[in-house]
């Protein structure tokens, strides 16, 4: 190869750094152009139909009724209606996440049981619920299970729970007057629990005797709380739901629509959570279990000290995405006329005809909800993450 003149600076169109900057500028310009075109198209279309792009209409009277949620009447504003929708969505999402986690944990552990029957019942559950559309499940619970259930029974009849086309009612705590005097006792119990925890830890560190700090601390808390409960003269009791003139009285009740959505979401998501739990426990390296066994830890200790902490670390990110899925799937509530955010929005679009603004609100709300869940899960993740390792 012959020697050649070495250009001090390469020409611009071959300069890698220039090309990188230039390419990005072109890319951004193209994106901006497309977005601008879309926006102009939309503005044009809306103007032709006399629709404005401001948010003033939210103050107008909505003029439709919502079956459920915070105080709302036909004279309330669109804004109020949307708030009702947001709160209903959050109610479904939060209760769904809690129940799906519990059920999913049970089934996930069941999947790993040494008991053949339990293992296979759990497996059949997972295969059925995970491979069927959640929308069909929600509609099925509502249309085929809850709606045909009539409320039967006499006035004043109390039961552990009621499920009928009137909704679902479950027992709840009822406070008596003066229930507040129990709170200091509860705080004292917490302090006692922390103290016991600290004491047992110290004992364990000094003498090496087993600390049993969790059960002992719980015992301390329970003892003080129970003492306070008696001292306060029984501040709470459990209230069973009852029938009162063809409706429910007492306990906590939700509408049939709410129950339908909840059942659908919980049974569906629990199947996925169960699989995650099972997968995470199995994913912990076999060598870890063997090392724990070699150290002479008991089966329970292996699980508690070695396997579970690592499994939790593996499980949290996918469980987070299941929580997000559940929250997003709660929008399917609209299919059975439960007034969640999407259902209300649909009505508002039909009434007020401002699809752009409403869809912005809907997307924004879900983004915020997703972020809140992710932030919470990240906190949990950090708490269990292995220190010193990069993910």
């Amino acid at each position, binding site marked *: 190869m012959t020697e050649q003149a070495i250009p001090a600076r390469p020409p611009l169109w071959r300069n890698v750094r220039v090309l*990188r900057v230039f390419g*990005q500028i072109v*890319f*951004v310009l193209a994106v901006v152009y497309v977005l601008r*075109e*879309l926006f102009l*198209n*939309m503005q044009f*279309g*809306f103007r032709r139909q006399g629709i404005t792009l401001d948010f003033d209409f939210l103050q107008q009277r909505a003029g439709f009724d919502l079956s459920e949620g915070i105080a709302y009447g036909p004279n309330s504003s669109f804004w109020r209606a949307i708030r009702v929708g947001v709160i209903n969505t959050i109610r479904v999402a939060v209760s769904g996440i809690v129940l799906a986690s519990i059920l999913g944990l049970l089934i996930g552990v069941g999947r790993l*049981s*040494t*008991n*053949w*029957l*339990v293992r296979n*019942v759990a497996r059949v559950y997972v*295969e*059925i619920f995970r*491979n*069927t*559309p959640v*929308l*069909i*499940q929600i*509609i*099925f619970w509502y*249309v*085929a299970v809850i709606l*045909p259930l009539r409320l039967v029974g006499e006035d004043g009849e109390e039961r552990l729970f009621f499920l009928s086309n009137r909704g679902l009612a479950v027992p709840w705590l009822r406070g008596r007057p003066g229930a507040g005097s129990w709170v200091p006792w509860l705080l004292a119990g917490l302090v006692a629990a922390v103290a016991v925890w600290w004491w047992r830890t110290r004992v364990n560190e000094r003498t090496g005797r087993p600390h049993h700090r969790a059960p002992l601390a719980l015992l301390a808390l329970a003892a003080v709380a129970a003492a306070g409960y008696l001292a306060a003269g029984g501040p709470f009791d459990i209230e069973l739901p009852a029938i009162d003139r063809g409706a429910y009285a007492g306990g906590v009740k939700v509408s049939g629509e709410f129950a339908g959505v909840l059942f659908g979401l919980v049974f569906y998501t629990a199947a996925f959570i169960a*699989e995650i739990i099972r*997968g*995470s426990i*199995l*994913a912990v390296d076999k060598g870890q279990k063997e090392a724990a066994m070699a150290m002479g830890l008991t089966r329970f200790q292996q699980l508690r000290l070695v396997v579970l902490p690592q499994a939790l670390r*593996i499980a949290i*990110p*996918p469980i*987070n*995405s299941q929580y*997000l899925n559940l929250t*997003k*799937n*709660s929008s*399917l509530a*609209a*299919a059975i006329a439960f007034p969640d955010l*999407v259902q209300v*929005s649909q009505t508002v*679009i039909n009434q007020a005809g401002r*699809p*752009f603004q409403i*869809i912005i609100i*809907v997307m924004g709300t*879900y*983004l915020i909800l997703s*972020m809140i869940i992710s*932030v919470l899960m*990240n906190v949990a993740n950090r708490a269990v993450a292995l220190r010193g390792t990069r*993910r």
Partner: protein
Amino acid sequence: MKRDWGAREDVALEAVAAKEELAVTEAPSARDLTPAQWVKENLFSTPFNSVLSVVAGLLAGWLLYAVLRWAFGTADWTVVKTNFRLYMIGRFPIEEAWRIWMGLYYVVLLVGLTWGQAGRRLTWDAMHIVRRSVLAILGVLLLLYLVDSPLVWSLMGGLVAAYLAGVGVGRIGRGRTMRRIVWAGWLLAFPFVIVVLQIADGVGPLRWNGFLLNVLAGVVGIVLSFPIGIVLALGRRSSLPAVRTVCVALIEVVRGAPLFAWLLFGVFLLPFLLPPGVQLPQIIRVMIMFTVFSSAYVAEIVRGGLQGVHFGQYEAARAVGLSTTRMMALVILPQALRNTIPAMISHFISLFKDTSLLAVIGFIDMLRAARIASASVKFIGSSRQTLLFAALIFWIVAFSMSRWSQRLERRLGVGER
């Protein structure tokens, strides 16, 4: 804030699930037990286990009894039988149904060819054969109940024949040309079906109903979102900050809102975003939204796969002089995509299940067909049957796809190579 939603973890977990499946099948077959020993070991090994067995047994037994008694005693399934065609093709005109059959024959023949051409020797053990036969018998029994028309029966017989013929031809004519024909056949499959449905005064998209609609919408979403998702994933991993930012924003915004909201976007807002004068039929807009939604998820799955490719592969590809495009196409993506197979299939399964959302935005898909069937005066109060039947069909498709994915995964040895 670290936003690590989904994809990557899904990939890892699926890979794990595959490995451990083997462990589970290994464990019980390790020793030969007498039935009594087996029962003792698996059901009554400890007092706690015994209690569990009794409780679970009673619960499962009662549920099974109640369901079976209802399904074969109380329930009247004529509503499903009467509306079977509604389920499958909705209001698709019956005199044009040959178009669907033609598409079906095409696909079934291709499946046969592919299978024969792959030429894998069947290594089924007795258990496998028994299970297959039971499934086949159940399927035939179900069809026996549902289908009366001799024409449909002979057409279905023809399908089986076409499949077997495909296997035969594929097996004999193995080789390069055959492989190319099969590939071309698959590439043309979707256009072929669409053309056959519409050509020569055919049937417009408005009357593609029922299960047909679910399948078409699902296939469109899958086929189109796959390449778009790959491009988005590459964009998200780009070294150019501007490209990365735009891709991240797009992916996260799309994933942030529910599919249902995006479908409403397609119905209410998309018409306004198009240039004035351009009008797309509702079904096309909805399919666009399915594609957009799915692309964001595919992008995250592919990103997970890309993260699994060792950086040494990039360096080696650069060092031998490959350009970025070739490096991606020849070295990185083939490895990344192989790692994503399980996650990709489970995403496609959930996309297929999500096509049931078509029912809530005014299309007559299979779920809607079920609702229509039970709405008629004649069959009032039959929603349980109609909904369960729709669920059953979704379930069959989703379950067999996930089974197939597990087998594929084992065969490709994901994570081993």
